């Protein structure tokens, strides 16, 4: 992001593209899940990736976790392109980049105890020597995620715990290797509402105390605003708007962001009228030329359908992929 002095990012995605071949039979289709996605995850910062289902946000997380191979693009860790250097993720990479999954009922193995889940990464990455140290570390991890006393949890199996507790265990497991980057894929969307703030606040604490670079993938832009420093909005596999959280939420430039913000229910205020945007699904197969949102945009112009929009920067750090963005002068609010 130009215009602002910033430390080098810990993990960076450059131009990530992912095409899936779907459908069996004689006519397999190409599904373009991601196109030219670039992200920077900075130390001690939370970056939110907001989008609806089908936007490609989970695919970005999976590619950064190296569970899925990108069709094109680079993943840069500390300045080195890992996709080129290690076709298969090394143990070193795994020790620095960890992931938290969406479903707390599926991300823990029902056949193993909690102690096993937390001890395995410690042993695998050589973080402890001997049983006493192992036990102490497990207890410390449980305490860090707010599960006390540790002995009440170590011998239990996942099926004996609630969703909120399981998600905290999943976070503890990710923290065991002392990662620099945490990729959280919709960590609260399957939790009860009363438990979500606890997990979000835990993420804030991890950012402040451990200085992790956190990627928060979500469909809920309200929680993204609560927790993150930067927000990137995705539509049809592309980032259409990104910038500081307050800027994106208060002065959205892209019509899709405006639609998203207007559609979110807010208990404290009257609902805003939805902008006049046509109903439609994001085009992932048979991708049109030009802007991917052109089919729904109320302000569409002929050039929108022919030429893909370049990324504009109406305010420092605030970038939008749209032809019609006004470039504001610095004195405007």
């Amino acid at each position: 992001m130009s215009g602002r002095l910033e430390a080098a990012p810990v993990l960076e995605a450059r131009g990530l593209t992912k095409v899936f071949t779907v459908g069996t039979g004689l006519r397999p289709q190409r599904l373009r899940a991601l196109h030219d996605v670039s992200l920077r995850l900075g130390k001690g910062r939370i970056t939110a990736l907001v989008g609806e289902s089908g936007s490609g946000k989970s695919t970005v997380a999976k590619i950064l976790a190296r569970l899925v191979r990108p069709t094109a693009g680079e993943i840069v860790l500390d300045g080195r392109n890992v996709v080129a250097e290690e076709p298969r993720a090394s143990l070193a990479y795994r020790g620095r980049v960890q992931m938290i999954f969406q479903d707390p009922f599926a991300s823990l193995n029902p056949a193993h105890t909690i102690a096993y889940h937390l001890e395995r990464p410690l042993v695998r990455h050589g973080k402890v020597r001997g049983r006493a140290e192992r036990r102490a570390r497990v207890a410390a991890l449980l305490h860090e995620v707010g599960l006390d006393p540790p002995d009440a949890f170590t011998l239990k199996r996942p099926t004996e715990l609630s969703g909120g507790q399981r998600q905290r265990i999943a976070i503890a497991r990710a923290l065991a290797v002392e990662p620099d980057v945490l990729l959280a894929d919709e960590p609260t969307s399957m939790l009860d509402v009363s438990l979500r703030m606890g997990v979000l606040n835990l993420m804030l604490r991890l950012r402040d105390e451990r200085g992790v670079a956190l990627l928060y993938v979500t469909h809920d832009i309200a929680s993204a605003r609560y927790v993150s420093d930067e927000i990137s909005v995705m539509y049809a596999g592309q980032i259409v708007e990104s910038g500081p959280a307050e800027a994106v939420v208060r002065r959205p430039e892209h019509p899709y962001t405006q639609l998203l913000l207007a559609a979110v229910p807010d208990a404290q205020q009257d609902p805003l009228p939805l902008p006049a945007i046509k109903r439609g699904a994001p085009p992932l197969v048979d991708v049109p030329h030009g802007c991917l949102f052109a089919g729904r945009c109320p302000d569409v112009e002929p050039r929108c359908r022919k030429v893909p929009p370049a990324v504009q920067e109406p305010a420092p750090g605030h970038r939008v992929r749209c032809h019609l963005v006004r470039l504001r002068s610095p004195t405007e609010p």
Partner: protein
Amino acid sequence: MSPLLKNRSALAGLGILAVFAVLALLGPWIVGDPLAFVARPHEPPSTEHWLGTTGQGQDVLAQLVVGTRITLAVAFVTGVLVTMFGALIGTAAAYFGGRIENALSLLTNVFLIMPGLPLAVVIAVYMPAGPVTITIVLVITGWAWNARLLRAQALSLRERDFVMAAIVGGESHLRVIVCEILPNMTSLLVSCFISATIYALGAQVGLEFLGLGDISMVTWGTMLYWASNDAALLTGSWWMFVPTGLCVALVGFALVLINFAVDELSNPRLRAERAWRGRLRREGVRVTASTPVLRKR
């Protein structure tokens, strides 16, 4: 293990198996030499020879008891090997996907469509007759079925987040397969083992009946071979094959009972439903498609 022991089907099945296990282990010391000539051939059951004599004048009961050991050993060893190969290949196919999966699936399908019996005959002709050959033959012709089954479940487990989490944690392929995926397949593995053993028992007896086993050894299958050879049906000597057949059927039945019990245990919903039906019946409420009303107040 303990809930298994509380289940009636399991208890019955385990009981029957226990009897045969005792026979297999201790039997040969109790009965006499099965191959010795003890009385006139084709003698019906009497107080001296409880199951009569064979066409060669040998004691049927002695043969039955001594034959238990080899027959059951072959059946269980085959069951274990078939399940192991099936698990290994099926789970590997599911886990790796892509070209490896295609290759392993092709291998599985080839072995599936190979006709078992002719292949068994061909192999038996070229190899020395005996229980080892039979085991090998049965494993070769039997592993593919379980591989398909286990692959299906491994596929659905592979997509679960905890497998992804283990991969992101840096675990090796082997570790993920053995420590993450397989432990969640225990009930299917047990079920596969039991059905493989039942298959092995029946197929083994069948092959030996056809004369493909070592006919100089005493097993349930060779007993049936000799019974047929000695015209047991023509002479009406039912004691030469009916008890043997009954034993095969009993062991198979015991295994099926245990299979049912394992199925029920791994499906708690079935148990809950049974409890619910029982309670409603006791209160005299009819079970219909709609939620019943059972007033306690």
